[in-house]
C-alpha cells in the first residue's frame, strides 16, 4: 500500500522536527517542505533527506499540489488564515500547528473523531495538548466546575512566535479546557524559565470537582492513569511526575513531557508534543480518508 504523501509548510524548528518524525511513519511520507527563505537550514536539511523543497510559500503549494494530500502548517496564525482557503480550494487536508484556529481544536486522546470529518484541524497549543487530556479525564468521572493549567517551558524552547503571541497561548489553552475537555470554566498560565541546563516541559493541572470523597478520588485517579497511557501511545515522553494530589474538591496533577530528541533537544517536550499529536491526527486521517493503515 502506498503511503499518504504530506507537505510541511514552514521550514523552522517545528517543521524540521516534524520531518524527522514523519520519516518514521508507516503510513505517511513527507514529500515536500515549503518555506520562504531559500537559505533556510530547514530547507537544506529537507533536501538532504530527499524531500522536494521550495521557498515560494503559497505559490509552491499550488505548484506542487499533485505531490501531497495532507499539509502540516507550522507558519504563523496570520499566515495560516491566509493559506487556509488555498488548501481548501486545492482539496487538501490541513493540520494547523499555529494558533489560528480556523478549524476545530483536536486533542488526539480526547476528540480525534472530530478531526476525521473536517478538512482543517487546529492542534491548540503545546500546553493544551499536555493538559486537556487530564481535565477531560477528571470531567468524565465528575463534573469539573473550573480547570486551571500552568505550563512551564524552558526559555530556549519558546520561539519568537510563542513570545510575540503569549496572550493567544493563554486564551486558547484556557478555552480548550472548556471546549474540548468539558470544564465549565478554564484558565491557563504560561511561565518561561531560563535555567541552564534547560528544564523539561512541566504542566500542572488543577480541577475543582463538583463532588469529592474517597470514591471520587479513586475513580479520578484511575481515569487519569488511563488517559496518560493513551497519550503515551503517541507522545512517549509524557508522564505523571507525582500521584494526583487531592484536597477536598480540588485535584492537582503534575505532568512532565520529555521530547524524543528528533531535531529539538529532549527538554523541548512542548514542541515534541505538538508534533507527535499532529502526526497522530494525520495518521488517523490516512486510515479514515485514504484507507492507509
Amino acid at each position, binding site marked *: 500500500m502506498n503511503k499518504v504523501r504530506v507537505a510541511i509548510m514552514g521550514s523552522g524548528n517545528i517543521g524540521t522536527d516534524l520531518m524527522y518524525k514523519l520519516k518514521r511513519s508507516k503510513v505517511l511520507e513527507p514529500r515536500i517542505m515549503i518555506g520562504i527563505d531559500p537559505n533556510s537550514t530547514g530547507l537544506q536539511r529537507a533536501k538532504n533527506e530527499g524531500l522536494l523543497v521550495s521557498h515560494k510559500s503559497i505559490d509552491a503549494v499550488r505548484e506542487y499540489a499533485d505531490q501531497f494530500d495532507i499539509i502540516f502548517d507550522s507558519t504563523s496564525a496570520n499566515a495560516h488564515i491566509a493559506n487556509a482557503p488555498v488548501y481548501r480550494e486545492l482539496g487538501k487536508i490541513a493540520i494547523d500547528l499555529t494558533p489560528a484556529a480556523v478549524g476545530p481544536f483536536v486533542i488526539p486522546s480526547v476528540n480525534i473523531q472530530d478531526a476525521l470529518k473536517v478538512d482543517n484541524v487546529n492542534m491548540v497549543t503545546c500546553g493544551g495538548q499536555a493538559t486537556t487530556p487530564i481535565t477531560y479525564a477528571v470531567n468524565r468521572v465528575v463534573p469539573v466546575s*473550573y480547570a*486551571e493549567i*500552568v505550563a*512551564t517551558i524552558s*526559555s530556549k524552547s519558546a520561539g*519568537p512566535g510563542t*513570545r*510575540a*503571541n*503569549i*496572550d493567544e*497561548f*493563554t*486564551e486558547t489553552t484556557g478555552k480548550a479546557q472548556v471546549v474540548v475537555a468539558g470544564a465549565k470554566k478554564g*484558565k491557563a*498560565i*504560561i*511561565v*518561561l*524559565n*531560563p*535555567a541552564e541546563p534547560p*528544564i523539561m516541559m*512541566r504542566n*500542572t493541572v*488543577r480541577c*475543582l470537582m463538583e463532588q469529592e470523597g474517597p470514591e471520587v478520588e479513586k475513580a479520578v485517579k484511575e481515569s487519569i492513569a488511563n488517559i496518560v497511557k493513551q497519550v503515551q501511545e503517541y507522545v512517549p515522553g509524557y508522564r505523571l*511526575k*507525582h500521584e494526583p*494530589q487531592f484536597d477536598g474538591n*480540588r485535584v*492537582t496533577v*503534575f505532568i512532565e513531557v520529555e521530547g524524543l530528541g528528533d531535531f529539538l533537544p529532549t527538554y523541548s517536550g512542548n514542541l515534541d508534543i505538538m508534533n507527535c499529536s499532529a502526526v497522530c491526527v494525520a495518521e488517523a486521517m490516512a486510515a479514515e480518508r485514504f484507507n492507509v493503515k
Partner: protein
Amino acid sequence: MMNNKKIILTDVTMRDGMHAMAHQFSDDDMAVIAKALDEAGMDIIEATHGDGLGGNSLQYGLAKNTDAEYLAAVAPQIKNAKLSVLLIPGIGTIEDLKEAMQYGINTVRVCTHCTEADVSAQHIAFARKNGLDTVGFLMMSHMIPPEKLVEQAKLMASYGANCVYSTDSAGNLTPDGVTARITALREALPADVHIGFHAHQNLSLAVANSIAAVEAGADRIDVSLAGLGAGAGNTPAEPFVAVCNKLGIPVGADLYKISDAADNLVRPRMTHPVQVDGKSLMIGYAGVYSSFLLHAERAAARYGVDTRDILVELGRRKMVGGQEDMILDVALDIAKQAK
C-alpha cells in the same frame, strides 16, 4: 551626586502586600487604604491581586474580590495620585488590561522575568499607544549581571516603556549590586526613560538598597505601608520617607500621614507579622521569589517537611516568579526522599 530631583513613590501595599495577606484584603479594606495613601501625597498607588491582573487563581491564591471589584473600590478614592495595575504576560492579557482601563487606571507595570523582556512587547506597545504611563518591570534582577539587565531594559524601552525597573523580587541584592544595576540602566537608557527600583526586605536591606538606587540615579522607588509585601515585605514607606527627609531627597508623601496609615490601617489588618525571620531570610539568602513564602509554608505543613528545605531547593532549581506549582512538586520530592 545627589540632586534635588523629586523621587516618585509607587505604593504597593494593596498589590505586593496582597501576597502577605494571602490576597484577602477586601475591596472595602482597599478603599480605606487608598484614600489614606492619596491624602498622604503618595504619587502612584497600585492595587489588585498580588500577581496582578489575572492573578486570581488556584496557582497563586484566590483573592477575596475580583480585580474589577478592587479597582471599582479604589478608583473613586484617588483624587491626586495615579492608579496603577500590574500585568504579567503569561498570567494576565491585554483583554484584562482593557477591562482595568475602564476604571480609569493611569499606570500599568508590565512584568517579565529579567531575561524574558520580549514577551512584553505587545502589552507595552498597547499600553503606551493608549496613553498609559507604561512601566517595564524586570523581575528577579539579581539573577543576571548589570550588562544583561541593560539589554532587556533596552528592549522594553524600545517597545514603548517610559520607565524600566530593576526588580529585586527575591530581596537578594546588597547595596553594591543595586548601585551597579541602576547605574548601568541610567547610563544606557535615554534620559526621558525613568529608572525604577523595587526592593524586598528579606536581607533587611530594603531601605538601604532603595537609597542606593536613588543615589545611583533612580527616579522611582516602590514602597508599602508597614512594609506589607511578599517575603519579609517591601521597602517600608515610613522609614524610607524619614530617611529621604534626613538626606534632603524630595518626596511627595507626608511622613506623619503615612505613619498613621501604616499604624492605624495596615498593621491591624495584618494576619501575621511581616518580618525578617528564619524563613523570609532564607528567601533572600537563596535568591527565591518572595511570593513563594506562604505557599512554601503551607506545602511544608501539608507534607511534613522543612519550609527552608523547600526554599533552598527552589533556589537550586532556579525557579522563577510564577512557578508556585513547583513548590508542591519540590515538597513532594523532599517528602519522597525522606521516606
